[in-house]
């Protein structure tokens, strides 16, 4: 004997794949703006700052901006994300512990 049961799972399907931002070649006289978003956890700022300096040694990065999230557990405000995207050429963000 069979019984019909209803699925308790989410059925909305996978999130649509997003396109990457357009890629470009770097040239020697570029003045790139590198944004570092650290999540507020211990040593995140140091780790990502080290990565940013390494990138600056290898690419024409003119300025580095560090944004410290007030809470690792909450996302950055959507308007802030738009502003960051408008003024940055490269972004490094850190997740996890």
């Amino acid at each position: 004997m069979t019984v019909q049961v209803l699925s308790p799972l989410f059925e909305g399907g996978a999130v649509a794949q997003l396109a990457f931002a357009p890629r470009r070649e770097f040239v020697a006289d570029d003045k790139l703006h590198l944004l570092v978003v650290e999540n507020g956890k211990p040593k995140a700022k140091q780790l990502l700052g080290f990565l940013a300096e390494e990138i600056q040694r290898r690419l024409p990065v003119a300025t580095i901006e560090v944004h410290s999230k007030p809470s690792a557990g909450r996302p950055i405000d959507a308007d802030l994300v738009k502003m960051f995207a408008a003024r940055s050429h490269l972004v490094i963000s850190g997740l996890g512990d």
Partner: protein
Amino acid sequence: MAEVFEIDESDAQEEMFARNWTDGLPVVPPTKQRVEEMLSGAGLKPDEVLGEIRERSRYLTAEKAAINAVLAGCKPEYFPVVVAGLRALLTPAFNAHTALTSTGGAASCLVVSGPYAERIGMRSRLNVLGPGNRANMTIGRAVRLVAANFFGARTGEMDGSSIGHPGKLSMCLAEYDPPAPWEPLRVELGFSLESTTVTIMATEGPRQVANHLNPDPRGVLLTFAAAIRNPATYCVGKASQGLVILGHEHAQILHEASWSKHQIREFLVKESRISKDELAEWGVLAEKGSQHDFGPTADGRLPSIASVDDLFVITAGGAGAGWSAYIPVWAPTLHNRSVTVPVELPVVDAAPISAKVARLRELLASGLRSDGADLLVEVVAPRNLRFTLVIPTAACAECVMPSKVLRTVFGRHVEAELGSDWSFTIVDPRET
């Protein structure tokens, strides 16, 4: 409409385990009929949206909540409490996206305060945090199954708990209303005494607090302060919330000494502050330059509880040798806050109830008509009936059973037809 699967009844448990619908324990097959009955328990339509986790682009419908409540073993009358718990879970201040994901391994602890808890048989006394009560266990389990099945909060997906704890299966208790002038949690949070509320907190496991010999209220509270400021607890010195469950003897000591609940909270918030040096003595290093660096403070100590309003004090548990509990939250208020939502009970649908009342009247009146009498029935208030005996002649007055006897007979039928939560009065012309 949720996807429907046809499964072999004799193999239903194994099939549901194979589909990863469970929390590791057997579940009740969510048939269409069971899900519809669950929805009716809260008077909800299947497609009603209860809330969302925006970061996951997932909107929870009442139907999906009901399916998981059936899986958990809930009765339909528990569903209004489950719904309130889920609405609380999905309130942005609770930050479910992170609370259900963090390595800290938080439970979704539900505190139910109000008369509906007793009406559905929830436990608020002996073994209040332990097993054995269907309502407590399955309401908490339903909320966790929604988190796992619908929002992906399970190991291997989006639950990153390093250790976790047994409360992640189910952690739900009812408050035992305190003696006056102390107010129950719902009233302290601004709701009416008659209402029932669900407060959700993302918590670590409970710490049992033992103090069996000290009759001094200050001594009892210092023991609680020691539990709150235990350096091994993640939130100590990081401004968080917390839940104190005052057991019978401890509540009695404090109440008889005329401590108000506000004074208790003030004392515990102050005494649970801790210095960086004290933390270091136990090997714990305070954060420097990161999100939980609160800088220098006036007394050189760090707050374990963010403010007097961030410590919840309730009474629950049975009499014993002097046991209570403290339940720390999983993260500082920077990331997550408790949320309280009132339980909304379904409005009784007039048509089916009137049909049931009419059937009840016919059933009861048929016995009276053979004695020359009749019966009128009115619904005079929600879940309250008035029966009026009609006895046309004095001759038949003695044939009809006295109202004291009728009360017993009517009571049995009212409970069978309408439910045990209905009451009634009998108007008997022989007694006027």
